[in-house]
């Protein structure tokens, strides 16, 4: 099953993806299409490898099997030079903001420009200030990352991610740990970027309410496979128990509340425990 009944153009094609970390198999045959110019959300329980998927889109990790094609290019097979060229068309917003701590806000945003191009200083200034204006932090351009709140850091990170006008934006848990006001700001910015600039956006998140409010398509991953996919409305009305548990946030259901264990009466009343012995 996959999100492959989409009518618009496909920006990213993932086919039969397999990936393991150590003994744990993270993906065991994931296939999905990410449509161009839309906001696609990848969701799922903690630890299902959502961030790992983003890393694979960016070529930081290689699949053990299967292909990841971005704009028709097989990312895993690119050599270093071509991979770096492909990455210039992508922007990624990291969960922690990941600003360079020894550079000011202005320098952080200017970083990609300075590394790749040789623009006149006045042009760099204009580009940076424009993007800062977009995220509402133009006045903060001289501050250092340590002086910013978490929400502000994330907005600066966003400005930095879009400075070279990427065609693909990836957001790694953009809503986590923010206060309601900043949350609303980020949600609005993501939507605006997608609508006004037509940037294909891939969003990884746990947050049902915020994500469903802006996503065009949602894919839910669990246990290494795609469990459900479709527009938010479709998923809300889905008959699947799993989807209902996830979407409504019910503590118990197909995803059990209890970690596998023996019977409670055995543990409490069974063999007498010595002092210091652990329950096994």
């Amino acid at each position, binding site marked *: 099953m996959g999100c492959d009944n989409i009518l618009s153009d496909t920006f990213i094609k993932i086919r039969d993806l397999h990936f393991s970390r150590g003994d744990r198999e993270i993906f065991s045959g994931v296939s999905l299409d990410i449509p161009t110019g839309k906001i696609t959300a990848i969701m799922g329980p903690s630890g299902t490898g959502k961030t790992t998927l983003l*890393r694979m889109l*960016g070529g*930081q990790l290689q699949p053990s099997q299967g292909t990841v094609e971005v704009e028709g290019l097989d990312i895993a097979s690119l050599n270093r030079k071509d991979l*770096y*060229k492909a*990455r*210039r068309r*992508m*922007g*990624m917003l*990291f*969960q*922690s903001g*990941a*600003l*360079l*701590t020894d550079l000011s806000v202005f320098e952080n945003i200017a*970083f*990609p420009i300075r*590394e*790749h191009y040789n623009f006149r200083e006045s042009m760099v200034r204009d580009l940076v200030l424009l993007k800062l204006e977009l995220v509402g932090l133009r006045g903060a351009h001289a501050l250092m990352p340590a002086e910013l709140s978490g929400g502000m850091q994330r907005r600066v*990170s966003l400005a*930095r991610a879009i400075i070279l006008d990427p065609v693909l934006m990836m957001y790694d848990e953009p809503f986590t740990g923010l206060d309601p006001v900043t949350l609303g700001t980020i949600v609005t910015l993501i939507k605006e970027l997608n609508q006004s600039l037509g940037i294909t956006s891939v969003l990884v998140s746990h947050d049902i309410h915020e994500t469903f409010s802006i996503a065009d398509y949602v894919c839910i991953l669990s246990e290494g496979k795609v469990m459900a996919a479709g527009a938010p409305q479709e998923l809300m009305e889905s008959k699947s128990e799993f989807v209902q548990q996830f979407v409504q946030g019910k503590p118990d259901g197909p995803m059990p509340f209890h970690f596998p264990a023996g019977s409670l009466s055995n543990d409490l009343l069974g063999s007498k425990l010595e002092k210091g012995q652990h329950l096994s």
Partner: protein
Amino acid sequence: MIGAFAINTVASFGRASIFLFQIILGFKDVILRSSLLIKELYSVGVLSLLIIVFSATFVGMVLSLLGYVTLVDFGAESSLGVLVALSLIRELGPVLSALLFSGRAGSALTAEIGLMKATEQLASMEMMAVDPIRRIISPRFFAGLISLPLLTLLFMGIGIYSGYMVGSVWLGVDEGSFWSQMQSKVDFRGDVVNGLIKSVVFGFVVTWIALYQGYNAYPTSEGVSRATTNSVVYSALAVLGLDFLLTALMFM
């Protein structure tokens, strides 16, 4: 089990060597963007000056003191200059500078890189199509490689001079014989240059270990702390081991 440990060690060493190779390839970027190098020379070299100068002064003085006390029994105190100079130039200068450097600058490098890894700064750089090895690691490597020999030279010079202050000015060894015996027995090519070669080798190894540990640290606070400790410990072992090797090659 020993087999697994040995294989892991060899694999580690292989990874570290590939890492080193990539760093060295970044040499031309470092030349083109010398401002990065200068910034690192400051943080790695200039900021280590305090501890180097301080240590050199006291080591020189103690050496002179102990040397005098021993030599005076043989009536050979006029050789004090030779003792102080040769000890510092051949051995104490390079080795102590390297150990102090590893503790002060090496651990700082490891912590800095480890922290950048833990806060995803390195990953974000990769996603911006900037190679973190060329941008962050290479300048620090060459800064360390250049700084340690310079610091060692300062250690030697300051140590000898402070040895002179204690030996001659305080303890009364004849100034003339202090310097003239030293000058005839200390060979420029055999001693000073060899000591310098040692410090270049140490600079190479200490910086390499520090950067590698940081780059491969587990991205948690415990991981970074462990990496920092490892960096200092491994550097110390490497310096002392290589010192024995080099001393045997150079002074036998």
